[in-house]
């Protein structure tokens, strides 16, 4: 592993995103618009439903977006021959993966800072815990999305397949993460299943921050998500083969 190569990969990925103005605009603006839409939906209802759903969405955006962006970019990298070239150079597989995770982590930090600023500042989302911790959770979620995106891109031959992994890998986690039905009220099997899905912990961490704000349990949730992300990166490294058929 080499910090030089990791930083080179991260810098290069960020430069590519910066050049793609439309992608950059969507990455940064879309979560803010969707948070506003969510707030608007509940605007005429009594109670604080926005405070209930908002945090979960703040966890879901970086995860979903980075999952998609990463799986498609890595697939492009596999298809264009640049990955083959890089693997024939003195580049460790982890350098490649961590470079991507770092670049998308930075993007997620900016994306979440904006979404949190809009939600808390403009839309009045009530956060009891420290606001910066929301950002930390969001970045870890993004790294999780990146790790899983890298992993599944190994199993997709085309961009069409990669995009299909989104309903396969992301939507079940969305349904079971406690957003629609509290996790302990799910049927036993599904509740157990939700316990082994990383997004559940990401959403728990966000909801904890808005609710009782027990920082210890937020960090516990964050570490679970981080562990999933690292496992994903390790598995992803195993799927990067220098020799291909």
């Amino acid at each position, binding site marked *: 592993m080499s910090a*030089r*190569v990791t*930083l*080179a*990969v991260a*810098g*290069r990925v960020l*430069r*590519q995103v910066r*050049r*793609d103005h439309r992608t950059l605009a969507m990455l940064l603006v879309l979560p803010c618009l969707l948070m506003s839409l969510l707030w608007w939906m509940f605007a005429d209802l009594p109670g604080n439903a926005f405070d209930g759903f908002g945090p979960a969405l703040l966890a879901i955006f970086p995860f979903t977006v980075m999952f998609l962006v990463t799986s498609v970019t890595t697939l492009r990298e596999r298809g*264009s*021959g*640049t990955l*083959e*070239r*890089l*693997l*024939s*150079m*003195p*580049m460790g597989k982890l350098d490649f993966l961590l470079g991507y995770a770092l670049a998308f982590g930075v993007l997620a930090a900016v994306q979440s800072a904006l979404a949190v600023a809009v939600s808390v500042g403009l839309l009045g989302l009530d956060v009891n815990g420290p606001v910066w911790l929301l950002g930390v959770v969001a970045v870890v979620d993004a790294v999780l999305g990146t790790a899983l995106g890298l992993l599944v891109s190994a199993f997709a031959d085309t961009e069409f397949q990669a995009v299909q992994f989104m309903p396969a890998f992301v939507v079940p986690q969305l349904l079971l993460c406690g957003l629609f039905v509290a996790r302990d009220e799910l049927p036993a099997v599904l509740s157990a299943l939700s316990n082994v899905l990383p997004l559940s912990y990401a959403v728990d961490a966000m909801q904890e921050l808005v609710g009782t704000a027990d920082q210890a349990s937020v960090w516990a949730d964050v570490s679970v998500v981080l562990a999933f992300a690292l496992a994903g990166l390790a598995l992803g490294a195993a799927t990067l083969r*220098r*020799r*291909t*058929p």
Partner: protein
Amino acid sequence: MMNNVIELRDLVVVRGDRTVIPGLTLGVAAGVTGLLGPSGCGKSTLLRSVVGVQRIRSGAVEVLGLPAGDRGLRDRVGYVTQAASVYDDLTVAENLRFFARVLGVLRGEVDAAVAAVDLGEQRDQVVGNLSGGQRSRASLAVALLGDPDVLVLDEPTVGLDPVLRRDLWRLFHRLADRGKAVLVSSHVMDEADRCDRLLLMREGRIIADGTPDAIRGSARDIEAAFLQIVEAPA
């Protein structure tokens, strides 16, 4: 007899259910070696095996005395894949600077590589906006970074104009004069005369091996020689 830089022994490569290379033993020394044959004959597979990115069924591939793909070879072998393996959304200079950082070579080499492939005017243009020939030259420039001892080039001159093609072959010879081994594939038979040594390949086998003059023999050109060899009664 010169020392072989690349050594293949009984190489067998199977892709899917097709035996692409059924058993090949070959040595390649310094100099410009051309690998000519129709598309689909196994040229790319052979080159990928030399770089160490091809999964092989059996046999051995050694480069500079090390197994192909060995860690110690990764900054000594420059490789151009058939697709221009550069990032379309970066400029020529940005691409080169990135690969230079991965290789750990000095930034000054970027300018030398850009000049070597004559992309000075395009250095700040995004690769995606360049012509096919310019893109493949950008890809070639990446392979030149770090002054590798072995260059493995998969059809680097496809679609280039004749002047540029001549200039690139001159570049290959200048590198060979400095002791490098340059292994170049092409499916264009008229490039044969530009090589020190010629390998004609068909259906995974080397059907002729020698200087262009020796292979041509009495035939009109290399294409005619190729046909003579293929159609000769066994």
